[in-house]
């Protein structure tokens, strides 16, 4: 089936390229898509006009240097237990250290599969403070919200989180509001959309006239999603289509959205390469303010700069590809990463390095 999809893509690309002026830039906004595309090797089979860009969709990559420094400052608080997803272990702070290095020096850093594991840890270690490192998009935020609701119900006083959550639609708005952007279509994140549904993306098609397709993660899903976008470009009729309808109902998951609304409030958030973006993140609501780790340990966010020479910021904005960076594969590799796009296993640079495309 894949061969037919690629043959169809070839034809569609020729027609679409006439409308876009030669090059077709499709941006995915999800680290899981980045990995699925790289792992399948499909990029080298794509028509020459088609270029896939990795947008700001990898949570570790978009977390600002200031927020990373806050995580490391928390890990250095004596007696504290840090519970985190494994993705965060190798991200370096502006002092060159990461959670792994702090763990080697004696910090208590534990990798958990679920924020519920962190809640259980707090319940079993009642004399110690447990901090869950919350980063991610609308897929992960409701999961952390549910864990916080359970912690509150159980009256846990020694549990807190960093609420560094980000929203996908405001990032799309920012990318498109840049008049120099050359984005021809968005492959929208399947699992973020399983929560928020289709409505929050409608402005992309209506205001900016850019095609959108919520897409699944199997190779055939991705090929079909790209062809949906190409058909929209050819027809000149941008809309929000749902290729992944087996998991993404139009209305998303209302129970999850409701819980997020109870635990979090929309807030300004600090993004790598972008800076502070208004109403683009989620902070704890007044009812859950006592679970804020940054406030509990009285830490202050720094305005630390990004690593020197690192092109991660431009890559996240679709203005560069990993091999454009002079450090890529030389000074910056997965075992000795400079920037977060190489640190995170689902970062654009790590995927490009690992699969060689």
């Amino acid at each position, binding site marked *: 089936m*894949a061969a037919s999809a690629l043959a169809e893509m070839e034809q569609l690309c020729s027609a679409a390229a006439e409308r876009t002026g030669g090059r077709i830039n499709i941006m995915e906004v999800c680290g899981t898509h980045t990995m699925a595309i790289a792992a399948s090797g499909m990029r080298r089979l794509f028509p020459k006009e088609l270029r896939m860009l990795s947008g700001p969709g990898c949570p570790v990559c978009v977390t600002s240097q200031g927020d990373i420094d806050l995580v490391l400052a928390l890990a250095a608080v004596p007696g504290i237990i840090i519970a985190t997803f494994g993705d965060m272990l190798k991200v370096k702070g502006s002092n060159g250290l990461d959670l792994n290095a702090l763990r080697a020096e004696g910090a208590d850093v534990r990798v958990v599969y*679920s924020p519920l594991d962190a809640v259980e840890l707090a319940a079993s270690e009642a004399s110690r403070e447990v901090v869950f490192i919350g980063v991610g998009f609308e897929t992960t935020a409701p999961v952390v919200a549910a864990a916080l609701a359970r912690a509150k119900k159980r009256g846990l006083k020694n549990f807190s989180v960093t609420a560094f959550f980000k929203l996908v639609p405001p990032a799309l708005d920012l990318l498109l509001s840049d008049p120099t952007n050359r984005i021809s279509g968005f492959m929208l994140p399947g699992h973020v959309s399983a929560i928020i549904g289709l409505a929050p993306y409608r402005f992309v098609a209506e205001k900016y006239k850019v095609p959108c397709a919520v897409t699944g993660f199997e190779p055939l899903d991705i090929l079909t999603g790209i062809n949906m976008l190409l058909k929209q470009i050819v027809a000149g009729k941008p809309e929000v289509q749902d290729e992944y309808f087996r998991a993404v109902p139009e209305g998303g998951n209302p129970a999850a959205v409701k819980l997020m609304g109870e635990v979090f409030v929309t807030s300004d958030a600090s993004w790598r390469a972008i800076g502070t973006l208004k109403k683009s993140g989620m902070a704890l609501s007044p009812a859950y303010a006592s679970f804020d780790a940054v406030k509990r340990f009285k830490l202050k966010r720094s305005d630390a700069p990004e690593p020197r020479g690192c092109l991660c910021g431009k890559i996240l904005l679709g203005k560069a590809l990993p091999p454009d960076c002079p450090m890529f594969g030389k000074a910056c590799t997965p075992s000795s990463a400079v920037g977060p796009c190489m640190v995170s296993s689902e970062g654009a640079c790590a995927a490009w390095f690992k699969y060689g495309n």
Partner: protein
Amino acid sequence: MCVAVPGKIKAIKAGNAEVDFSGVTRSVSLDLVPAARKNDYVLVHAGFAIQVLDPADAKETLELFKEIYKNEKR
């Protein structure tokens, strides 16, 4: 990070489900999909089911793929 894996609910007890992921069973919270029932397929992210999958929609996707790519020779 937004990886989610489908599995089938084998049993439900006090808001938690035993979910079978092709032979591996794990406890999964149903806090975010309170309507999920035994034998439903759910999409699981970080210990929580985040959506109930409709087998009819999954079948329709497969049929759609077949329809779109029906001229496939191999």
